[in-house]
Structure formats: structure tokens, C-alpha cells
């Protein structure tokens, strides 16, 4: 579904991503792991259209997406969450979700002023769907609250609900379980499996091995900007090169 070919990105003097090549298979959850500074977040940002690689190609569903910009990437079906949650903090939770829906006919000036009927029906449908999504992640009670007043875990769930509202073909999750209670982490893992069961492809960056074990079908290990290994989590964890990249000894990952 997504082919990353020889992508390189340099910032100032340092090279964050160097000759990175791998592909994300449709219909599964691919994990992206690696020690700090391996370039995972940078790569995610490049995929999401926020950065332009200095070299290389990214092909999504047959379309080259490097350099097209965030909006176009999202319109093509790649939706992301953020490492530190970026909810629209002053707006109500429900608005945060409804806003994410694609192809809203009411989103231009003329329609807002003169063609109310053309979007009123769609708007009602979208709200129903948003409420269903909020119920699914357990945030219904908070739908009128400003999103900034939610706890960290609740905000992560909100980001997931929001991302799903956008009907992604490829979902990019940037550390979706960081900083949440184990119970919420398991809920998130379950929800991700349910998402994949409906045909959505997921690429998730994570550090927590327990979380990855529940969620990922396949894991790509990055170190120093390039792909080190690829395979099921168990194999990769035991691989010598991977272990060396993380700590220079000892086992990979923990329960943070």
C-alpha cells in the first residue's frame, strides 16, 4: 500500500533519515520501532507530508506523495495522530471529531451562507457518526467539554476517534500508548485490532513492547536513519543487531 524508497532527510548538519526503504502491507498493523534518534518520527512526518525528503520517493496506492503537502496527503487517505496530542483544545470534543470528516459540502463560504439545505442532512449524519465513534472510545460523557480539559489518556482516545472520522485508508499512529495507564493502553490496542479488522492499514510507532505484541503483525526496526531488520516482533527482538542498536547489550524494550 505504501512504498518508501530510498528516502533521505537531512536537517542542518545531521542526517535524520538515510536511504530508508520498506513497504507497508495493506490490511495489517506494521510496527515501527528503534532507539531514540533512529529517525522514526522524522519518517512519519515525511509520510504525513510535513517534511520534504531531500531524496527518495514515497508511493501510496500508486501515487507519489513526497512533497505534495499535508492537506493533499490527508485527502488521499493518510491520516495521522501526533506524538504529543494535538487536540483543538478550546473546541468541544464533539466538534473535534466532526471537523475531521472528509468531503464536507458545507465547508465553503457560499454553502455556509446560501445553501444550508445542501449540507444540513450531511451534517446530521456526521454528528450521529461522531457520537458513535465517541461512544466506541468511551468519551460520550465528555462530548460537550473543551478538548483541552481531558486527561492524557482521554486525549489519545479522542485523537483516535478523530482519525477514524476521517475514514483513513492508512492510519499513522505516533506513540498512541505513551503516557497512559495500562488499562487504557489495552483498550487502545483492542480498538486498533478492531480497526484493522475492518480493512484499514495501520503503521504504528511505539516503544512499549507489550503494546506492540498485542497490536503489531509485523515490525520494522530503524536505527540511525535506515531500516535494520524486519519481521515478527519475537524474531526481531532476539536479533543481535537490533539489540546492539538499542543498548549495546541486554534485552530490547521494556514496560515503560
Amino acid at each position: 500500500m505504501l512504498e518508501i524508497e530510498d528516502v533521505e532527510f537531512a536537517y542542518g548538519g545531521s542526517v535524520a533519515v538515510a536511504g530508508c526503504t520498506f513497504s507497508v502491507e495493506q490490511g495489517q498493523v506494521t510496527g515501527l520501532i528503534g532507539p531514540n534518534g533512529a529517525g522514526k518520527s522524522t519518517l512519519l512526518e515525511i509520510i504525513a507530508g510535513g517534511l520534504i525528503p531531500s531524496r527518495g520517493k514515497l508511493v501510496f496506492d500508486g501515487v507519489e506523495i513526497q512533497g505534495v503537502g499535508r492537506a493533499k496527503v490527508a485527502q488521499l487517505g493518510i491520516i495521522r495522530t501526533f506524538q504529543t496530542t494535538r487536540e483543538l483544545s478550546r473546541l468541544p470534543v464533539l466538534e473535534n471529531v466532526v471537523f475531521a470528516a472528509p468531503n464536507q459540502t458545507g465547508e465553503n463560504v457560499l454553502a455556509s451562507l446560501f445553501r444550508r439545505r445542501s449540507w444540513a442532512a450531511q451534517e446530521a449524519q456526521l454528528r450521529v457518526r461522531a457520537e458513535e465513534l465517541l461512544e466506541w472510545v468511551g468519551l460520550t460523557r465528555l462530548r460537550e467539554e473543551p478538548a483541552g480539559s481531558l486527561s492524557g489518556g482521554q486525549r489519545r482516545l479522542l485523537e483516535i476517534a478523530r482519525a477514524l472520522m476521517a475514514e483513513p485508508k492508512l492510519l499513522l499512529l505516533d506513540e498512541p500508548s505513551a503516557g497512559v495507564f495500562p488499562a487504557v493502553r489495552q483498550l487502545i490496542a483492542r480498538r486498533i485490532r478492531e480497526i484493522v479488522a475492518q480493512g484499514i492499514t495501520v503503521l504504528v510507532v511505539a516503544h512499549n513492547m507489550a503494546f506492540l505484541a498485542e497490536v503489531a503483525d509485523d515490525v520494522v526496526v530503524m536505527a540511525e536513519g535506515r531500516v535494520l531488520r524486519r519481521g515478527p516482533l519475537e524474531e526481531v527482538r532476539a536479533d543481535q543487531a537490533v539489540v546492539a542498536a538499542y543498548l549495546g547489550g541486554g534485552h530490547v524494550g521494556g514496560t515503560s
Partner: protein
Amino acid sequence: MLFFVLDLLTLGAINAIMAVGLNLQYGQAGILNFTYYTFIAIGAYIAAVTTLGKPTLTGGVEQYVLQWRLPWPLALLLAGAVAGVLGLVVVLIVIRRLRSDYLAIVTVSIGFIIWNVITNYIPLFNGSNGLFAVPYILNGATVTPIEYTLEVLVVSVVVLAACLWVARSIFRSPYGRVLRAIREDDVVAASFGKSTTGSRVWVFVIGCIMAGLAGAMLVFYISAWNPAGFLPQESFILMAAIVIGGPGNYWGAVLGTFIFIELLSEIERFLPNVGNGAAVGAGRAILIGILLIAVVRFRPDGLIPERWLRWYKTKGPLPSGPASGDPPHLVTGRRGPHRLWGWALSRGKS
């Protein structure tokens, strides 16, 4: 006494038109336009030069462009249109860098320049002497001042109602929601496929049109206009007024302008003349400055915050249990090829 009240209301209505325009630009869309008063001035000047006709030779020679004699409704619309076009030009200049401090600097500077040019280039709008004896609207020449005030009040209220309708319609629409999202976090908005620049161009232009209309009404009411009326500081004061009142809520913006632009100016007239002549005006400005900082610090959404404008009802009673089991259909087929204007509704199952 009646005259005073009517005068207050009329100026209040005109100031409210300005407030609504600025609410659209800054409150709803988060665009920092620090030269809003320039657009008001352009509206005033256009309305003047399209109704004044040829300059009369009595009382000195005035110079100005156009010199048309149009009926006042046409002049009013023209004023709004020209202000809107100027707004389009400005936004296209800054379009590649819509970050707030950049916008602020550039708009302030454009305001200074335009003020500079108008003051120095006399053939345009008669320089620093300005224009006067702008004809009355309706049958103003034949009625008493009180009746004229009432007439202007009625027209202003009609214009204000139209502007409020526009602001409200935008607020209560998906378009308004996109604007709010871009205002809160433009990276997130772009990450969900929203066009950040396209959406904001139009709201800026509409805000400028409203400024032009307000300027026209103002010049119809006071019959004169000159550069002293739109010094750059005026834009700052207007901005401060709506920030204190509640920028995101058009009623808040109206309230803010009413209190700080109007009420305080009127009260100035009744205070004794303290110190040098400018002391009272200076005192008012200092008060506004302190209040501005205080509001931003302690009540950042203003006196009348945006969240008081709830516009939709959510369904049914709230369930209180943990997350329910079955996942909703996540792929409804509503995503299809992205359409630029979105006229077609792709049908999907839900």
C-alpha cells in the same frame, strides 16, 4: 437628551458593524489584521467621492478623485466592494506566510503606508484637509438633525442585521468550524485535508467589506472625513475593544466596541478638562491598555466568550457506563476522490 441617546445608538450600530467584521477576521478565523481601520477609511472615502460630485468653489478648493454623484445605496455598496477588493490584495500579499506576528507586522505597515499616501497625495482624497459636506442620505437635507439621526440609525441597523446574519451563518456552518480549527491549530487542520489558505481568504475579504460598509455609514452620518480619523492607533484600539469584549463571539465583539469605543468616548465629553487637553484621551487609552492585559491574563476568551454560542443539540441522554463493545462501521465509503467544491454527496452506509 433624546438626541444624545439616538446619537449613541447610531454610532453604536455603526461601531457594531465594524465589530462584526473584525469578529469574522480575528475572532472566528484568527487572522490578525492590525489595520482594520484603514478599510473603514477606504469605505468612507469611496462613499464620499461617489456622492460629492464636483467640488464647489466656496470654502477653498477640494481635490479628489471620481467626483461622481451616485445615489447613496450604490455608493454604500461600492464602498464595501472597494474595501473588499483592497482586502483581497492585502491577503494575497501575505498569503504565503499567514503566521500571526508576520501578518500583524505587515498589516500595520500597510496601514501606515496607505495613511501616508492619502495624506500626501492631495489629488486622491484632498490630503490632510480631507473631505467635507458629504451629502445627506435619504431626505436628510430637509429634515431636522434628530430625524436625520433616526434615519441613519435605521439604515445602520439594517446593514448591521445583514452583517450579523452573515457572521452567524458562517459560525453555525461547517465552514465556520473549519475556520475555528485552522485558528486553533493549522497543522492539525491541514492534516485532515482542509485547505488552510483558501478558507481564510474569503473570510478576510468579507470582513473588509463590512469595514467598508461601516466607513460609508460613518461618513454619511458625520458628513466629513480626514486622515486624523484613521490614525494607525485606531485599529489597535478597535482590536483591543473586541479582544476585551470577547473576540470569538460576535455579541462580545459588539459589546466590547460599544463600551470602549463609544461609551468611553462619550464619557470623555462630560469629564472636566484635566491637565493638558489630551489628558483625558490618554487616560482612556491607558485604561484600555491595562484592561487588555488583564483580560488576556485572567479571562482570555473575553467578557462574552465564544463557548456561549452553542449551536447544535446532541442526541439523547448520556450513557454512563464504560466503552460499549461493538465497533461502529469504520469504512462507510464516504471517502471517494476528493472533490474541490464538494457539491456531490457520496452516499455511504452508516
